[in-house]
């Protein structure tokens, strides 16, 4: 066997398996077929490969295409559940972390802890004071309502103040006579003032001497409300 023949023989041996499985390029396939035509005995090797291929294919056990599928799906379902659980845990973790960090920072810095406690105490005090004040206001409002609604009877004073009289002047005039404002001011600027009947004359004279008062009249009964 000369060198050229030997080279051709090696090339044929190299290409034969691919010729049998049908993946050779057109050029290589043509070369193999030419070689077999000129070396008829080489066809036996192709036949052997073909026989080998047939037996290898036949020897692979036929299994159902679903082999292992249920196991895979179980694995996938388990993973999905794990992922869902992990996401839920992460969401809770994200919510709790700032709170936990804040609490941890309080313990790590006593000054902040004291400040936070003091803030809470002050807030509680303010809320308590507001609550008490609200109760008092409600009581005052109730008292006022009871006075306002109590029907005034008997003689009253009808007092008109000068136009330049201030609110403090009016309040001081009422204090001077020990009177209680039960009505007014009306359309003409009159205030209705109640004092005990036995002191009504004295009170009227006192008011008349007050520089802030324009006029004072004694009425037997308070005017009827419109």
């Amino acid at each position, binding site marked *: 066997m000369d060198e050229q023949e030997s080279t051709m023989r090696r090339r044929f041996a190299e290409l034969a398996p691919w010729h049998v499985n049908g993946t050779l390029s057109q050029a290589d396939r043509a070369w193999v077929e030419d070689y077999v035509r000129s070396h008829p005995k080489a066809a036996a090797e192709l036949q052997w490969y073909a026989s080998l291929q047939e037996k290898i294919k036949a020897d692979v056990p036929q299994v159902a*295409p679903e082999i292992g599928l249920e196991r895979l799906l179980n694995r996938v379902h388990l993973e999905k559940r794990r992922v869902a659980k992990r996401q839920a845990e992460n969401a809770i973790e994200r919510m709790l972390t700032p709170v936990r960090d804040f609490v941890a920072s309080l313990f790590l810095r006593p000054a902040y802890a004291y400040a936070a406690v003091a803030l809470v105490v002050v807030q509680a005090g303010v809320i308590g004071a507001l609550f008490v004040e609200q109760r008092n206001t409600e009581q005052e409002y109730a008292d006022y309502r009871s006075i306002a609604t109590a029907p005034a009877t008997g003689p009253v004073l009808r007092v008109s103040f000068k136009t330049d009289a201030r609110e403090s002047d009016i309040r001081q005039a009422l204090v001077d006579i020990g009177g209680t404002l039960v009505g007014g001011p009306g359309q003409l600027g009159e205030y209705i003032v109640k004092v005990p009947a036995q002191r009504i004359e004295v009170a009227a004279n006192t008011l008349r001497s007050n520089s802030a008062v324009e006029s004072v009249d004694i009425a037997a009964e308070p005017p009827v409300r419109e």
Partner: protein
Amino acid sequence: MDLSNEQVFALLRELGAGKESAMRVLYRAYSRTIYAFALTRLRDAADAEEVVVDTMHEVWRHPDRFRGESKFSTWLLGIARHKLLSMMRSREPVHEEIDGLEETLESEDAGAFELLAEKQRREGVRNCMDKLPEEQRECLHLVFYEGYSLGEVAEVQSCPENTVKTRLFHARQKLKNCLRLLLLRENGNG
């Protein structure tokens, strides 16, 4: 059933959206290919099934990793190969190599091939295949069962094409000699 890459891409997109129906289609199309490949190396049905499940699980987890640069089945068998190799790492090799036969019987006469083509039996082929080194047995499976080209076999086996040629050459020699010995033994006994 071998799907086109377009069909595979469509299914992989659905897989990415979490559709199990797409997984069922892909699984039924390729499970037997992976199983046969794994069985060639592992020679254990349960282990081969495990490789099928592991491989398809990998596809489920990373459907975007297939770029379409090769056939989908080639890409799949590449994954399967990694799975089965890691499975085998912890195990002792069980095959009885037949390197000796390669040197003692090197006859290239056409008569030997003729005789083998006519007389070799399935059990004999299986017996001799089992004695080949795993890389060579795997190579023969990819060439003759899957019908892969030289480039595709090299891709699955993660090696240069020349390595595939060498593996195939040695497998051919050992297989041929093993089969001839079997026939001689049968004739001697008969």
